[in-house]
Every structure is written in C-alpha cells, then in structure tokens.
C-alpha cells in the first residue's frame, strides 16, 4: 500500500515560533501518501502551530515544509468550535462547497456534482439529513458533514484536529472507516488525537511533540514499550512534564 510513492509532505529541520516564542525546533519527517499519521502531544506542545505551518499559514523561522500537494487539494478540518455552525446552510450545501477546486466560485453545480454529493452523504450515513440546517445537527452529524466536504474536495492531504471530540461512537466507527478508505486511495492524512484507543485503531505512524521536539514512533510503541507508563499519560496531557 505504501511501498514506494514519494512523500508529498516533508519537513526539513523545521523551526517554528509564535511571535517571539519558539515552539518547535529541529522537526524532521515525511508523511507518506496513504499513511495516517497521528499527531499527539500535551496542550501547548505545538500541535496547532505545526498544523498552521503544514497548511502554509505560518512561515517557519528556519527549515522548510515541502509540500507537493496543490493548495486546493489540501483540506483542513478544524475543531468544530472554530466554525460558525449557526450559519443558515443545509448539510447538502455544506458538502457541495467542497466542489470548489473543480468548479470555482462562479459556476453553478451540475447534476453530476449533486449525484456525487448524494453518494458521499450516503457513504457517511447522512442522506436523511441532506436538507437539515447545520445548526440543528449533533456533534457527530456535523463532523460527518464536514468530512463529506473534504471527500467532495477530493483532498490529497487531509489534516484533522481532534475529529472525534464530542462525537458519538457510531460516528467514530464510520469516520475511521472512511478515513481508512481515503488513505487506501492514496490520501495523506494527519490527525491530531488525544484518545489512545482511537489512535490504535486509526494510525499508521505517530508523531509525538514534546519539549519542543518531534519524535516519530509506531503506534504499537505507545502500548507495548516499557516507556508506555510515562508516555501515555504524558501525551494525554494529564501530567505536567517539563516545558519548552
């Protein structure tokens, strides 16, 4: 599955700062197409900062982010709280906005787009909600609608910030299945996670941020290594261990 294709997203000796404060230093790594990478770390470890840099919103102090995915095919799913979900828009309309890269801002949607939108909603199990306003959805339903938008967008690089927060277990199952399918289709997925159970079910790789540095590990390392006892609570942010 992830045999040889070149990494579409690479970090070279990345140094990131917010204002005057260094957040991350010397972060290296490459994200393979078709791999799901979990990004973990305590609050303030630099997860959001790294995501900003990956999306091209934050210029590195040093080093570089090399991304060969065109900007239009990069999807970023913020935590739900960051969105104004009281906006009077239906689920279908939200999903359809994902057709922007292929369709631009001006042209109307054609039948093929609507068909694709409906297929996507069916896949996510939200067909019955197509005309429901966003404001009336539950957390899980919203999350599915937002994932629907990224499917519509045919994203090649997908970043998700805690997609399973405030979401019911049925939705978690569906989302994990869909994300897996997307990865199998070659999408590079990076997901910020806090829940170790979700991580075990979803991630191929783990990038752990702590003390201003990034550390790559296998998901299994988080459960089986002798260091687990310290690592897990640490990554969950339950104990305060050092700082930058």
């Amino acid at each position, binding site marked *: 599955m992830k045999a040889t294709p070149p990494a579409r997203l690479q970090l070279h000796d990345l140094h990131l700062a917010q204002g005057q404060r260094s957040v991350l230093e010397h972060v290296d790594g490459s994200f393979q197409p078709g791999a799901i990478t979990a990004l973990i770390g305590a609050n303030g470890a630099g997860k959001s900062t790294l995501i900003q840099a990956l999306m091209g919103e934050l210029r590195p102090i040093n080093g570089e982010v090399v991304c060969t995915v065109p900007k239009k095919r990069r999807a970023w799913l913020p935590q739900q709280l960051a969105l104004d979900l009281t906006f009077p828009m239906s689920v279908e309309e939200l999903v359809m906005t994902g057709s*922007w890269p292929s369709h631009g801002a001006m042209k109307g949607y054609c039948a093929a787009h609507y068909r694709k939108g409906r297929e996507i909603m069916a896949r996510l199990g939200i067909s019955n909600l197509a005309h429901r306003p966003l404001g009336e959805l539950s957390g899980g339903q919203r999350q599915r609608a937002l994932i629907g938008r990224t499917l519509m967008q045919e994203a090649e690089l997908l970043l998700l910030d805690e997609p399973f927060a405030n979401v*019911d277990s049925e939705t978690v199952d569906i989302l994990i299945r869909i994300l897996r399918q997307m990865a199998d289709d070659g999408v590079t997925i990076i997901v910020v996670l806090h829940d170790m159970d979700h991580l075990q079910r979803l991630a191929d790789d783990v990038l752990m941020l702590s003390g201003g540095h990034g550390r790559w590990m296998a998901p299994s390392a988080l459960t089986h290594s002798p260091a687990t006892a310290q690592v897990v609570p640490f990554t969950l942010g339950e104990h305060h261990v050092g700082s930058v």
Partner: protein
Amino acid sequence: MWDLFNAWLIAPFDYGFMRRAVVGGLALSLAAPPLGVFLVLRGMSLIGDAMAHAILPGVALGFLLAGFSLPVMSVGGVLFGLMVALLAGAVSKMGGQREDAAMASFFIISLAAGVMLISLGGSSVDLTHVLFGSVLAINSTALLLITGISTLIVITLAVIFRALVVECLDPLFLRGQSRHSGWVHSVFLGLLVLNLTAGFQTLGTLMAVGLMMLPATSARFWSKRLEGLIGIAVVLAMIASTGGLLLSFHLDIPSGPSIILLAGAGYFFSALFGRYHSLAAKLRRKTTPLAVEQGY
C-alpha cells in the same frame, strides 16, 4: 372607498419627485437587504452603522465643493468610506486590534468631521438634508445614480455569493481554496459603502443603514434559510420604503425617519409574531409538548 384608496396610495405618485423616490427606494430595497443579511450572519451588524458615519465627511466635502449636487457628494462619500474601511483594516492588521475596534474609532472621528464641515459651509437645513435625507432631492441624475449603484451591487453580490457564504462559515477553507480570498471581504465592504452612498439621498447618511439592517434582522424571525432570509428582507424593505414614502408625503414628515420607523415597526412585529425565536413562537412552545425526536 376607491376614492380613499386613490387619494392615499395612487394620487401621491402624480408628483414626479414621488415617482422618482419610490423607484429609488425599490432599487435600494433590492440591493441593501442582502448586504444586511450577510452583516447579521457574520456578527458584524454594527459595522454598517460605522460605515454610514464614515461616508459623512466625504459627502460634506462634496457639498462644500459643489453645493447640493448628489453625484459629487456621492463620489466624496464613496471615496471617504473606502478610505476609512481600508484604514480600519490596516490598523487592525498592524496592531492586532480587532477590526470593529478600529472601525469604532474611525467612525466617530468621521461623524464629527462631517458635521463640522457641513456647518462650516451651510445652514442647519442642509445638515438635516444630509443626515436625514429628502425625497425632494431626487432628480433624474440622482435616480440614475441610485439605480445604477443598486444594479452594480446586486450583480457583484451574485458573483461573489458563494465565496461570501464559504467565508462566513469557514474562512480558513476559503483561504485554502482561493488566492483571492482576501478580496472577498474587501469587495463586500466596498459594496457596503456604495450602498450607503446610494441610500443617503432619500434616507440620509444616518438612516441609510436602517434599510440594510432592519429588514435583515426582521427576516431572522421568519426564515432559517439563506435564500429565505434574503427574499423576506427584500420584500420587507420594499414595503417599508414605499409605505414610508407615502407616510412622509401625507403626514409631512421627513422621508428617511418615516421609512426606517416603518421598517422598525416591521421588526417589532416580527419579534412578537415571527415564526422562529419570536415571543409568539416561545409561547407556542410552552403550550404544545415538544415532539420527541429520535436521534443523536
């Protein structure tokens, strides 16, 4: 009965200025409410108010230079409004201050400057005209200006509609999708300024914002869908502007305030009896048991 109808609703339009005023009002009613709906949805309701004050110095300068010439005053208003919008944007980017804070500072300066300029050059009658509008001021040139600007606003809004919707919901998504995302906000502010400039001739600079905001805020009580909000707001604005003009004609009161007060009456009515979130809707909810919806 027919005589009464004729005397109240038809006869006033025998006068040319009333015909021009009503056409101008209807044109504005097409352009202003959609802008208002977006302002309300983006939580920027007061920005419209701020911009209305911001165009005043430009209007006043035009007045000083060319007398009561609507085209010159309008150009002045547009230029000044855009300048304030740009300055406010620049200050907020520069200092990390929120745009509304910067806007609030600029608009109060503008208001003072505008009133000062007008009183330097004219009488208090002129000041009243500029601040509160006058239907008598609408000649053919002014009407052409109003309808032209309204057309431009409606067309531009149609072009940037999807981008505007996406920006309201998720600005980051828009930024990822389009290199021109920064423009959407600027174009929107530009339309706002244009609309207020078109509106000040009938409504006055201070009242022009009312035809934008009141129908939009009233529509929130009647619809939960964007198309619905815009459609209802446009209809409410048309009723208010036409009805307000007639009231102003018959009762010999200034046109601006009477149009806006009528729109205001519509707002109170909506807040009391509207379909959603109104007082009546709240009472209804108390008397009928909530349908139990199965879901998560």
